[in-house]
């Protein structure tokens, strides 16, 4: 039984969590591999989904034409979560838009005790225009720091509202706090779905143009008999420039799927015949294709 990836979008009130979520939901169609996402949101009223995309709306649930569902967390995250896990069929991916004061690591814990779930990543948004206020908030500063601490991917929102020096200082500050975690800027929530939620599909991993359009780089290859420990060691060296990687691979122990989501690398046994596909998406600072080719070919079949 494949595990459902769980993505937690965290960040202060007003940092652009809902914009990002809206963008992800609208991209979930077949053009990106097609995945039925169930999103649990805090502020239902703030969702701004194109009316054309909405198939049905009742109570605290919106169904989209592309198969995604959006539901309100309402009073109790656990209760809504239980409801989602009782759906048939189960969704392909679950996104939780955490409240502005939630500790994302607490929510992530659900995946640790549910054999049907896999924590894909905690994505934390940092508002470039308000970081200096949020990080000094008399009541919430510690909470803010915890959200950044828990992140596997840091997204700097509203970069257009901050001046260059502020932005540079913020990036430096975050890089010091979380040296292994990649950062990317996001304006109005517009980021490629494959970057935020990971690459979909086990056999044919798509290479969408959108990744390149957003200024990211991608390398894909076929890896034969790649020991998982060796691959993880290579990926750890490439931090923090790698945002995403996925491979459906084989080594002496058998088939495995590897997911890299920013600072989090996980592997899980793969029951089918591993295709050997491997894709890595990163920032322009990542080594170029020729260098990556060398890195990943080395001790293949070791």
């Amino acid at each position, binding site marked *: 039984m494949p595990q459902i990836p769980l993505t937690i979008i965290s960040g202060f009130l007003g940092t652009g969590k809902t914009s990002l979520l809206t963008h992800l939901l609208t991209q979930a169609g077949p053009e990106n591999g097609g995945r039925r996402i169930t999103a649990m949101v805090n502020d239902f009223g703030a969702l701004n989904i194109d009316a054309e995309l909405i198939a049905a709306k009742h109570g605290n649930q919106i169904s989209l034409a592309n198969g995604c569902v959006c539901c309100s967390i309402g009073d*109790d995250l656990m209760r809504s979560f239980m409801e989602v896990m009782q759906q048939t069929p189960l969704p392909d991916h679950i996104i939780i838009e955490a409240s*502005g004061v939630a500790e994302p690591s*607490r929510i992530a*814990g*659900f995946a*640790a*005790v*549910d054999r049907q779930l896999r924590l894909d990543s905690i994505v934390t948004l940092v508002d470039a225009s308000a970081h200096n206020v949020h990080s000094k908030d008399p*009541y919430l500063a*510690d909470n803010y720091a915890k959200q950044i601490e828990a992140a596997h991917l840091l997204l700097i929102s509203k970069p257009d509202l901050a001046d260059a020096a502020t932005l540079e200082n913020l990036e430096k500050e975050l890089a010091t706090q979380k040296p292994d975690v990649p950062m990317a800027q996001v304006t109005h929530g517009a980021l490629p779905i494959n970057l935020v939620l990971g690459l979909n599909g086990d056999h044919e991993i798509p290479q969408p143009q959108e990744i390149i359009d957003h200024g990211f780089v991608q390398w894909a290859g076929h890896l034969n008999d790649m020991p998982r420990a060796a691959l993880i060691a290579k990926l750890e060296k490439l931090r923090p420039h790698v945002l995403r990687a996925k491979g459906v691979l084989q080594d002496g122990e058998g088939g495995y799927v590897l997911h890299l989501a920013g600072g989090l690398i996980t592997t899980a046994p793969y029951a089918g015949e591993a295709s050997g596909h491997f894709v890595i998406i990163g920032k322009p600072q990542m080594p170029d294709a020729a260098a990556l080719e060398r890195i990943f070919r080395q001790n293949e079949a070791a």
Partner: protein
Amino acid sequence: MNPHLPHATHIAVRDGHILGVGTADDIDGWQEAWGPLTLNTDFAERSLLPGFIEGHSHMMEGMFWDYHYVGYYDREGPDGTVWPGLKSIDEVVGKLKEIQAARKDKDTPLIAWGFDPIYFTDRRMNAADLDSVATNCSVIVLHASLHILNANNFVMEAADVKSSDNSEFIRRDESGQATGEFLGQLGYYMAMRTTGINLLAIASSPETLVNFANVARQTGVTTATDLVNPIPAGSEHAMREAVDAEDFPMRLVVAFQGNTMEPTEGVARMQELQASNSDKLRFSLVKMVADGSIQGFSARLKWPHYYNGAPNGLWYIEPERLGDYLKAFTEAGIQVHVHTNGDECTEVALDKIEEALRAHPWPDHRHTLQHCQMATRAHFKRMKALGVGVNLFSNHLYYWGDAHINITMGPERAARLDDAGGALAEGVPLAIHSDAPVTALAPLFTAWCAVNRLSSGGVTLGNGTQNISVKEALYAITMGAAYSLKMENEIGSLEAGKRADIAILAEDPIDVGAEGLKDISVIGTMVGGHVHLNQGREG
């Protein structure tokens, strides 16, 4: 509690209400207009008090009695059975083995509640303990705090708890193995996913309501609260059917969980609910939860935070959103009770109430801070100025007083924990509560806690200025709580025209005094003129 007539020998009841209180001669005078009254001397040797009002409890208490009680203290179930306290982990395990042996369907989940490891300092309960109870079914033990639970290996295997998941909410031993203890929502999620049982179901079934009412009734309660309920559409009808039944032995006030929906929708829902209020079932207020608990280290504290250095607690809602809700409900004239445990949270709640009142002035709003355990005199002064009441969690003094002195707050700040004396000195309307099922529901015990401020370890918290008198405590569990619910015009005292809600006690608490307050036997209650007797109670 009627200031004009604090003591009397006779009381007359008609049509669910008190016709008159006074001497035999005073009562005689009513017969001319109302026809003959029958003298009932059944309780002539007893002490009649206004029915007690539990201003902060949860109907979950009624649901938990479907499971097995394994707490440290004796506790009385809805049928009057006393479940003896279990004084060691071995006793708890022994009791569970006994229960398992007696169960017909041995493969269904075995669920117990009320376990409190704070009293067992030599070791913690682990999965092996519960494996010795059963290995072929789920065994789950909920802690008294409701923040932690223990599970056996059957549960952990079903959940696929992996050694690689380094969640801080899974307790592990030195070798990295999960011990079977799970913290926070994660534990409940696992237990519910693996057993299919909704341990935190919304309590509205008739059985739960009746169980809850019986637990409360046995302690002299005639009005209790379910102080947070999302009240899903339609569930109010099921509640009404149960509570309005003539033999249902209690009035019930249900607080709507404010954050269930957006503020404007919440206001509309409350207005709809209020329109359906009856004599016995009320939907009159909104509850907002702003932080966690002190003993769970999730309360928001001001600097210097926790005594043992634990990181500051959790906000359960963004302060900004709390403010939005308070503004909307204040504008609509709907009373809000805010759960605040830590002093930082209390301060933020007061800020937000003040903002709401500046935007929508409302004399006598009676917004109330619930628990409010670490409030300072400065907070009480502000509450007085803002017209905010308080309902303090006095039972904490006994159950967790020692932990607050030694671990969470330190001796200096623990002195002001649940400072009922301070609240009264500053002129803040006061009620005190049990938060059942977190602690046992029994207003006389709660009153004893506020009067004596004695921990279970035998330590007195504070220097005496925080204590209240027996009379003040009795007022807090009757008129004080009635006032916090805006019901002081109909319940809370025994006087002509009010509802005939009476606690029948074996002895007069004023005569018994501070020390024996908690041990006074409750003979029964009268609710709206109907008498409900406790089985086998003698004075």
